[in-house]
């Protein structure tokens, strides 16, 4: 029997699948925005939420995340409407975090979005270097990005910036320079991602055709290490593999719901959710194609493409795989009590001896060296 545990958090994720332009590295469920009528999707989302409210029963919403895609393309008054719908259905925690993802070229919407109730903006800057921005197929240049950052800072109580590194042929010196520029921006929160080549993307295909090569593992590892070093020195320690904040108040609460294996609703095309109801933890996946999502919601009042009950083993594994990404690690008993057995002591001590893992009382956390091998370590711990 699994119960929803409020301390792990309850979040609502809403996926807005449209972008002004599709970036060549992106493998999210996204479609070109064009001149679309947003009303049918918005009302499908509302209906989906309503049904989920019936399923979850009363709960307090800790976080709302409007992601995508580019949800800054939703008119602010519609954003406000959605927030109000959620608030009226479940009620919001007093310190609720309401995030929205935006691109620098939508800065005209910032003030309106803040008024609508967004209190945290996650801005997809990606680079401060124009060549890199061009390579990444972004719609903005560095100058526009800086202006957007200024405006966002004054509009929102919490500002997070996304950057991508380990671009092909990027060297340590270049990245160090760019990174000190990033630090100087004094954002509250920084997400620094190594460029990942996903197979079905334009980049994936280009690499497949041999047009260029991604950074090799050794370079990427060097870049990661230097990033950690500089960020620590600058007062932005990592609290997750790729995430840094100036203080714990600015940690992304919504993402912590994922990493802490809380419950979240996945609403909107292609969104994934995890919801614990009546003793079971469900994995839910919404229909990917917006039209299909809208029609499924019309027919069934839910946008689901599939839902399965996770086994206890799956739930426990997710706690380890997701939880170890946090610098603070996981509580051992979180896994052990659930599955009714201990971690393999031999594997555990091997990782500890090799300096990849640390154990304090009931807590397991990756060392800085271990973080580079997070997937390797966590998968071996649970296998």
């Amino acid at each position, binding site marked *: 029997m699994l119960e929803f545990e409020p301390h792990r958090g309850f979040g609502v994720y809403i996926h807005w699948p449209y972008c002004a332009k599709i970036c060549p590295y992106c493998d999210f469920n996204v479609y070109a925005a064009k001149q679309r009528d947003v009303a049918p999707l918005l009302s499908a989302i509302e209906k989906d939420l309503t049904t989920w409210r019936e399923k979850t029963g009363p709960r307090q919403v800790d976080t709302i995340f409007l992601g995508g895609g580019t949800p800054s393309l939703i008119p602010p008054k519609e954003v406000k409407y959605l927030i109000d719908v959620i608030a009226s259905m479940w009620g919001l925690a007093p310190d609720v975090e309401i995030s929205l993802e935006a691109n620098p070229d939508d800065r005209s919407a910032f003030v309106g979005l803040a008024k609508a109730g967004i209190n945290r903006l996650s801005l997809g800057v990606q680079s401060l270097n124009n060549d890199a921005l061009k390579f990444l197929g972004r719609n903005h240049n560095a100058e526009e990005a800086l202006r957007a950052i200024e405006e966002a800072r004054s509009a929102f109580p919490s500002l997070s910036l996304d950057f991508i590194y380990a671009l092909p042929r990027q060297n340590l010196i270049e990245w160090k320079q760019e990174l000190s520029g990033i630090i100087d921006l004094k954002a509250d929160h920084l997400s620094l991602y190594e460029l990942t080549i996903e197979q079905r993307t334009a980049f994936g295909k280009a690499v497949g055709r041999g047009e260029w090569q991604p950074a090799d593992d050794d370079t990427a590892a060097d870049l990661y290490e230097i990033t950690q070093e500089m960020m620590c020195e600058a007062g932005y320690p990592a609290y997750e593999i790729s995430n840094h904040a100036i203080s714990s108040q600015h940690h992304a609460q919504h993402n912590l719901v994922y990493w802490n294996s809380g419950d979240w609703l996945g609403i909107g095309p292609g969104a994934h959710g995890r919801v614990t109801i009546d003793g079971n933890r469900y*994995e839910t996946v919404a229909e990917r194609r917006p039209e299909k999502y809208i029609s499924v919601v019309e027919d069934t009042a839910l946008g689901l493409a599939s839902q399965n009950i996770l086994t206890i083993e799956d739930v426990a594994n997710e706690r380890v*795989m997701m939880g170890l990404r946090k610098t603070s690690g996981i509580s051992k008993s979180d896994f052990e009590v659930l599955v009714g057995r201990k971690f393999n002591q031999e594997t555990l001590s091997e*990782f500890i001896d090799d300096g990849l893992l640390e154990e304090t009382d009931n807590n397991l956390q990756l060392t800085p060296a271990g973080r580079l091998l997070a997937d390797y370590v966590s998968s071996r711990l*649970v296998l």
Partner: protein
Amino acid sequence: MISRDKIRNFSIVAHIDHGKSTLADRLIQVTGGLTEREMSAQVLDNMDIERERGITIKAQTVRLDYTAEDGETYILNLMDTPGHVDFTYEVSRCLNACEGSLLVVDASQGVEAQTLANVYQAIDADHEIVPVLNKIDLPAAEPDRVKEQIEDVIGIDASDAVEMSAKTGMGVPDVLEAIVQRLPPPSEGDADKPLKASLVDAYYDPYMGVVVIVRIMDGVMKKKQKVKMIETDATYELDRVGYFRAGRLEDADALYPGEVGFLTASIKEVADCAVGDTITDDKKPCEGVLPGFKEVQPVVFCGLFPVDAAAFDDLRNAMGKLRLNDASFSFEMESSAALGFGFRCGFLGLLHLEIIQERLSREFDLDLIATAPSVVYEMEMRDGSMLELHNPADMPDVMQIMEIREPWISSTIMTPDEYLGGILKLCQERRGLQTDLSYVGTRAMVKYELPLNEVVFDFYDRLKSISKGYASFDYTVKEHRAEDLVKMSILVNEEPVDALSMLVHRSRAEGRGRAMCERLKDLIPRHQFKIPIQAAIGGKVIARETIAAMRKDVTAKCYGGDASRKRKLLDKQKAGKKRMRQFGKVEIPQEAFVAALKMDGDG
């Protein structure tokens, strides 16, 4: 009873893929053995593996009724044989039951190594031989040149060779006439004498049990008769006797001299039948016994282990069942520090090994790890005893060994001239001794003596790639010779991995060791620590490589939608882990055990 002179027993022999089975199918079709509709792609190659690979593994027998141009009806008993060198023994059994052979030669390819090997066997068996040039429909067919070749290389008259196409059916009637007119009927044979029959072969049928193929020499074999198999000294009451028809058995009341047919007699397994044995009447035995056949000995051994240790019993049962049908493969229990419990199995060659492995995994759904193939070494010990070593891991202390002997083969390679240089180099590298080199037109025929050990693994693949598939190869095992052989161990992260140890010639040890270490470096995934890989003889390291420690294995982004992705990845890893073997702290993928031995050009 059919008059003996209306019987023709013949084998179809050829190099692999020259069209024996296709011709056999045609003969069946033309004589009405099967209607067009009943003819599936290959009637005789009826095992899945045979159909998929397009090769014959098991010889097949079919009896046809043919009304010839002279108006008489003849009984034709054809035996389709495998062309691959691993199954040469099947050919020799068939030859013993017949008086003549159709020698099929692909008119676009000409005489190849197994053409020679098989036709010489037929000549040795005193067969009348009718050369048949097949695939005459191909634009590349050169019947005149191939006839010349047959005369030059084999030394038989090819002026009357039948030109035909098993594909289009052209010339098939001529083949039938040639069989009747040019091949002899069974000689001798007296129905009044006591029963004397040759046990040609046996196979296992899940419904009927063991079915024995027999050739009657003298006397009559009847249903319910009590017979005795002389060599095994076993007596049986016959349940059924009869003939092989296409795709079925036809019961008969009795079999008469000169006839080839079958018997069933509640025989439990194929191994109970000694191929070549003489079958006679239990109460009225014949005089003397038939010469019998040379027993086939497995020449290649390897360990087979279940991936999942719990499947050991399933593996044992599966092997037992396969052996019901294939007495030429042997197995005995083996335990390996690295791989747990499994079996040491003996095979007739690498194709045979591959086929058994494939059947085990396909028909019995077993996931197996195979160790490197090895040959049988003879060890003469200081205390005067002789030891046969099937598994390098069992090698005794070198101080107690006087001499190690390894099997050598005589081989024949035929190749277009342009590839000869590369092939000679390959044979030289493999310690070969050239015994002959001659030319047939632009084709070279070269004979080498080679240590089997050097051939067993990838010689054939290398030969094919050097010659772009044009060279053909045949061999017979000759004798054991004393050589300077040493045991090479492979250490992974300082620990010896028994399943990777091998015997090598001292002169080749360093090269092999280096190649092995390099391969393993690519085959073993990076771990969180660095892994030294060493090849050693005794305590001395002769080659070394290091697998660098893994530096990075982490997903950059991991949010709500990625949890499921991660889980699927984990499931995949879980499946992958099953295919890994743990050696101390190191996991080795099971494919590595065989792949490590594949050598590159310089091997």
